[in-house]
């Protein structure tokens, strides 16, 4: 069975799909970059996890 000829509407849908894909890919890159910056900048990242963390206690005492 032969493929039906490509219609203009298929090209438009393909363009839309590419647009969404590129947008999502850029969003992932951005979230990753934000994560790297926030982690490496030394923002306080620790939280209570059932082990003794004196530095957290000191922070609370302030």
């Amino acid at each position, binding site marked *: 069975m032969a493929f039906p000829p490509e219609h203009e509407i298929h090209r438009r849908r393909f363009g839309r799909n590419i647009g969404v894909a590129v947008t999502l890919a850029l969003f992932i890159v*951005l979230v990753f970059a934000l994560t790297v910056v926030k982690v490496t900048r030394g923002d306080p990242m620790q939280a209570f996890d059932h082990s003794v963390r004196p530095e957290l206690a000191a922070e609370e005492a302030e």
Partner: protein
Amino acid sequence: MSDIRAYEQPGEAGFGDYVQLLKPRVMSLVVFTALVGLLVAPVSVHPVIAFASILFIALGAGASGALNMWWDADIDAVMRRTKSRPVPAGKVAAGEALAVGLALSGIAVVMLGLAANWLAAGLLAFTIFFYAVVYSMWLKRSTPQNIVIGGAAGAFPPMIGWACATGGISVESLLMFALIFMWTPPHFWALALFMKDDYSNAGVPMLTVTHGRKATRTHILVYTILLVPVAVGAAFTSIGGPIYLAASIALNGWFLIGAWRIWRRDEAMAEADGYATEKSVFRFSLSYLFLHFGAFLAEAALRPYGMGGW
């Protein structure tokens, strides 16, 4: 077959039509003013966080544009200036514009909160609410003061940018807000004077329709006079300086002369030269805002070299 039926829908949207929903031209002004608000703040921001913050502020502004297009599809279809927008042109369904607007609003606010801080995110959420609900749904069709109060939505971006950097609100950020807030009415009323029939055909109670064109000319002059102390006053805060002061005095003098010339004219004179003065003041008002924020930026850029500021 369903495929054949699909061929019969010529109005199916492309990716660009969804981008148009976000009002990219309005977005460019939002990006610029928010960026200035962020850069002139006394706290430095990591470039990645600054980029992400501006992006999500722009996305939030775009989302409110999509919500506006959903709500205003009926009047957009009537006005010459707006009838080719994606919803009235039949490319994007109104419900789709609503979905895009709501989804992007949520993403923009949450991501700005995570990237910068929750005060900035809260201000962005309020801006979207203000533009979509207070302006579009409530004021636009009910009062000729619609753009005066609605102008607040466009005035928030530099305040959000400042909040991204500092985590707070200050007299500087309030003055940047006030500058755009006071600039909006004369800017739009100058437009309304020469976009003659558009608003009346759509039934939007613009000042030109409800109070007449002479009253609109007077309003332009009065609001321009009120704008001057706000614009020049910002020169004496921490974000101002001699460059800003000189630029502001020149720009405000020019804007006042323009408003005065608009006030002195009547409809016969305006008709005779094709609204030349009104059009030139409208065009100048765009440069006016751009150059004021450019001057803030220049002061901030020169400060590390001991030249900007007082």
